[in-house]
């Protein structure tokens, strides 16, 4: 019976030990509760140090003129810390949202500013400019009201965010330009100005079939009628790829909606979400005549070493993109997944059935709300 006493003693000590001395040290990125930005706007150095040490994701929220804004900070991004001022002043003007930052010098690490507007913008793009010059890239998200996500690396004390009317090149008929091998250049980031300049020089013939909007029934792959003026799907088995004719398109992959819904995101995936929401910034990529969006996506991901998984879905006669950069469908709530839009339109058929044309802009965007938060309105 002496043994029994020893055992119970060991048990008590051990349990006391393991409940007090160790906390979960399984490598996880913590998500902190949203913190309110104080009146002064100053976030102390020690708070940032703590976020950095715990490798956490922290959200600071505040209000200015009844516009709600949030700062998202990834502990893994923080390098040097000091007291920073996160308060901003937002005013609605005729030109857009005027933003004044109270911080004057650079933060020293990238942050994400999300501005929750009280209305819904119809435009899918916005730009942040100061003195007529674009200063930040802005991603427009939000289901009911618009949320503007702005990755901030350098501080610009005053800038205005305004919606950009979507103007894509597909309205004008264009003539064809054929590239030589040397022209098949490496992918590179371009500014919109460069792109426009480039597009004005390039034209291509238009042998694509457009929808007349008269169809009323689904086609045999369960696709609802394609809206008038939009390209009809081209079945992958009918796509003839001409390796001699190289074209270019602008390609981007982004998931900034996740940053507005971090609570729904699976804990294991927090680590791999890019802190600015951009997986691939707008890049000019080369493709060959007749290739579909999916072909290009596959090539771009391979080239840039981005993980991508897709599965062939015979019912829709198209590949279905399950996950990019290890962010899969349903990883951020039940309504989440990847969607693609070409020149601002979300095709209502799979990306293997969209034959690309020279100079088009393809965006792959992660949605957390069946497309509503990425300005796609026909789903759900």
């Amino acid at each position, binding site marked *: *019976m002496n043994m029994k006493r020893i*055992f119970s003693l060991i048990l008590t000590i*051990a349990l006391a030990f*393991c409940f007090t001395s160790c*906390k979960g*040290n399984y*490598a996880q990125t913590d998500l902190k509760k949203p913190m309110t930005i104080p009146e002064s706007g100053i976030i102390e150095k020690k708070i940032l140090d703590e976020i950095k040490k715990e490798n956490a994701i922290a959200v600071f929220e505040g209000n200015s003129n009844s516009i709600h804004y949030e700062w998202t900070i990834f502990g893994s991004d923080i390098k040097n810390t000091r007291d920073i001022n996160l308060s901003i002043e937002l005013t609605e003007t005729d030109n857009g949202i005027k933003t004044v930052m109270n911080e004057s010098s650079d933060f020293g690490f990238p942050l994400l500013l999300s501005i929750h507007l009280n209305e819904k913008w119809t435009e899918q793009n916005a730009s942040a400019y100061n003195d007529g010059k674009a200063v930040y890239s802005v991603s427009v998200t939000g289901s009911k009201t618009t949320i503007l996500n702005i990755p901030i690396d350098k501080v610009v004390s005053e800038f205005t965010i305004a919606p950009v009317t979507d103007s894509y090149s597909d309205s004008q008929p264009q003539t064809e330009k054929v590239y030589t091998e040397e022209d098949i250049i490496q992918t590179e980031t371009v500014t919109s100005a460069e792109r426009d300049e480039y597009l004005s020089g390039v034209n291509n013939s238009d042998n694509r079939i457009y929808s007349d909007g008269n169809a009323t029934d689904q086609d045999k792959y369960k696709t609802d009628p394609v809206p008038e003026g939009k390209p009809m799907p081209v079945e992958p088995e009918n796509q003839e790829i001409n390796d001699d004719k190289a074209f270019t398109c602008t390609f981007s992959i982004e998931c900034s909606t996740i940053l507005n819904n971090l609570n729904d995101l699976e804990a294991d995936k927090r680590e791999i979400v890019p802190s600015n929401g951009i997986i691939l910034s707008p890049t000019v990529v080369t493709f060959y005549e007749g290739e579909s969006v999916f072909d290009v996506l596959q090539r771009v991901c391979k080239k840039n070493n981005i*993980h991508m*998984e897709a599965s062939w879905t015979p019912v829709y006669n198209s590949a279905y993109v399950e996950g990019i950069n*290890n962010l899969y469908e349903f990883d951020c709530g039940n309504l989440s997944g990847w969607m693609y839009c070409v020149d601002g339109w979300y095709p209502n058929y799979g990306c293997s059935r969209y034959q690309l044309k020279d100079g088009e802009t393809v965006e792959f965007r992660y949605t957390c709300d069946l497309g509503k938060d990425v300005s796609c309105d026909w789903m759900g």
Partner: protein
Amino acid sequence: MFILKFCLPSILVTSFINPAFNHEGQTILIYFSNGNPLTLESILYGISSGVMLVTILLWFVSLNRVMTSDKFIYLFGKIIPSLSLVLSMSLRFVPRFKAHMFSVAETQRCIGRDVSSGSLISRTKTAITILSASVTWALENAIETADSMKSRGYGLKGRTAFSIYRFEERDVYAVIWFGFCGLFLLAGNIVSAFGFRYFPNIRYAAFDITTIPFYCIYLGMCITPFIINAKEELKWKALYSKM
């Protein structure tokens, strides 16, 4: 032999199957012909799930060896008499039926009805005869068993059952030890001391002073039956050599 013949192949099969269907993971090794990546994480997860599957099988093999039907009846005979009887009878039924069928087949072979030779039709005929004989025997046997049990008053109130098990002091120690280990490991699980994830990248709890005790306790728990058996074996050997 079981390990070589069954366990190793099943580990191999799962470690091949998983990466073929699962493409998650940050470390891309190569691409499949359909464009999906082969990732290091999915291979490792395949191996680990193969090992896990085999472990479960081994657990059940051990359970089968340790939990004989008399132990089962001893444990559950009072709480759920009919269910435990049905369970132990059906568990026993399979090996018994197999043995009986084998002996019927042997007997049939003696009178020239061999299942291993002859035309397909004659072989099928023989097999059907053997099967029908065995099934008839099994049914009859079940009725007889049920009658026999009924006449001996099984399941009636106040019926006692003899078993050679008693709750002794060493059982108290065992219960305390396993209870302690169980609680300790449960606590370890709560603080994720065994935390391990494969996707999207491999992350696991650090192997340091805060987690080593948990691993030690787990090893201790797993090795306890081995120690008990080895001790008994040694004791037996020692006694045997003295005789």
